[in-house]
């Protein structure tokens, strides 16, 4: 007997179309393999890098467009409204919860997310001084979360896998 290590199954598939006759009758023996595809990326954070580097110092940065005064958090190096290059602007890290989801399954995005207990709260926060909403985990019991509640950025000293997890939101007060 020849050995095929990736082979998972050989089966006979029924026609899903209930056709008579089955025009594919000669092709109903099916072999199924288990295959893997793994990649590793050197992923530059590019012009957004300073945001992540400053999180290590417990500082929260957005970017400001000098032309229209919008403040972007998450940062944008280029203001899409003006196509003007922005500058870094520190924010206090306090803000208001605008909307949220209570997620009952881990997304598997990275080790940091895998460490979160489910359910977790994905919060959209309007940071004081910002024009856009910043999405991140709000560490709070779902039953205590209310739209309009005041929250703030809290910082982690790590170790984390991804630098975005050097911060998260908590309720103020």
């Amino acid at each position, binding site marked *: 007997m020849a050995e095929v290590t990736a082979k998972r199954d050989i089966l006979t598939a029924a026609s899903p*179309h209930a056709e008579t006759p089955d025009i594919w009758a000669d092709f109903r023996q*099916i072999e199924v393999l288990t295959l893997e595809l793994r990649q590793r990326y050197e992923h530059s954070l590019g012009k957004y890098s300073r945001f992540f580097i400053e999180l290590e110092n417990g500082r929260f940065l957005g970017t400001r467009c000098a032309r229209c005064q919008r403040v972007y958090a998450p940062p944008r190096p280029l203001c899409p409204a003006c196509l003007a290059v922005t500058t870094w602007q520190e924010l206090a890290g306090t803000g208001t919860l*605008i909307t949220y*989801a*209570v*997620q009952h399954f*881990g997304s598997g995005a990275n080790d940091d997310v895998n460490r979160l207990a489910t359910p977790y709260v994905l919060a959209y926060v309007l940071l004081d001084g910002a024009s856009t909403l910043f*999405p991140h985990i709000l560490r709070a019991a*779902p039953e205590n979360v209310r739209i309009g509640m005041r929250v703030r950025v809290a910082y982690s000293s790590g170790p984390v896998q991804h630098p975005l997890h050097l911060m998260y939101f908590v309720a103020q007060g």
Partner: protein
Amino acid sequence: MSGLPVVVGVGLTAFAANRVDCTVRDLALEAALACMHDAGLMDLKAVQHGLTSYESDHFNRQMTLGALLHDHLGLTPLPNVRVEGGGATGALALRTAWAYVQSGLCDSILVYGAELNGRSVSTQTANQLFALSADFDWEMMVGGTYTAFYAAMMRAHMQRYGTTEAQCAHVAVRNRKNAQHNPLAQKPMDLTIEEVLNSRAVAEPYKLLDCSLLSDGAAALLLATEDWARAHSPVFARRPVVYFAATGCGSDTMRLGDRYPDITNFRGKRAAAQQAYAQLGISDPLAQIDVAELYDSYSGVEIQAVEDLGFVAAGEGGAAVASGLFDLGGRLPVNPSGGLLGRGAPVGATGIAQAIEIVQQLWGTVHPARQAANARRGLTDTHAGIGTLCVVNIFERRD
């Protein structure tokens, strides 16, 4: 308007969680073959162009699927183009074909879409792969998923307008019930509102039965000038002429948070609908559209869509849906096929399958239990992301 393309033939495979009997190329071939037979053609030799519609290299584990499928359909050395527009891929493919025929670049074009979104990978892997189509560095890395983005959007809608989970559940019940009359549907079910409300929480306010399906499947549609159709399709003169009458496309920011304060609805969908309506002089879509296939990726998304498409005013979608306005037998039947919730959603095929349901509704050839009365104009609504790219296509029967 005589230059508008007509639909010459349509073909669909059964949608299923696991079409273990097929590779992605087998699926595309099944749909294209069905389309060819539907058009009364013995082969595809007279067809002048191919168009491949698929979203994901990752799910299908194959890049340049356009070249592969075109080859296996025997369409070489004809020109081919691959179209990708996230969840809106199939609808964008048809919109592209519309422009190709209208411009005179070709007189006939076979649009075929296929995807393996079912069980070839685990649900968690599927979520990760779909998350790659979100903003990878900012939304995916914090643990966001599309279900959560949609849930946050729906929660904002509920907060602003008082929309309820029971109103969302009405969509989940109705669309799966409609699927019971569709033999090619993946998940026909006879549910109660309570069963939807009591199903397992996934990303609150959405529960398991509020969520659409991951599917394997394919769809194909042959689009042509009316002259080409009369010259080549022996069945064309025997059924009502259905024109691909109008198309609109709109967009919005990738991240929900960047849309603040407009985070309850789909701005891009409003733009797409207005373009398509302007092409046909539609001013009262609820009265002037007879049947529609809407992008119900989650139950509440249909509520948001009926508002953005102008069927009802902003904030009135929940009550309108719950009143039965969009049920079979209602004023404007929505998702008679079962929609993404009941029929399924193999991404590259979804928008084409929506169009096929509308075309068959206009031809009057669907199962009588899901046939909309006096259907002469039908609409499809398809979007990518959380309404990041939106396509509205309108088909008309003229006889």
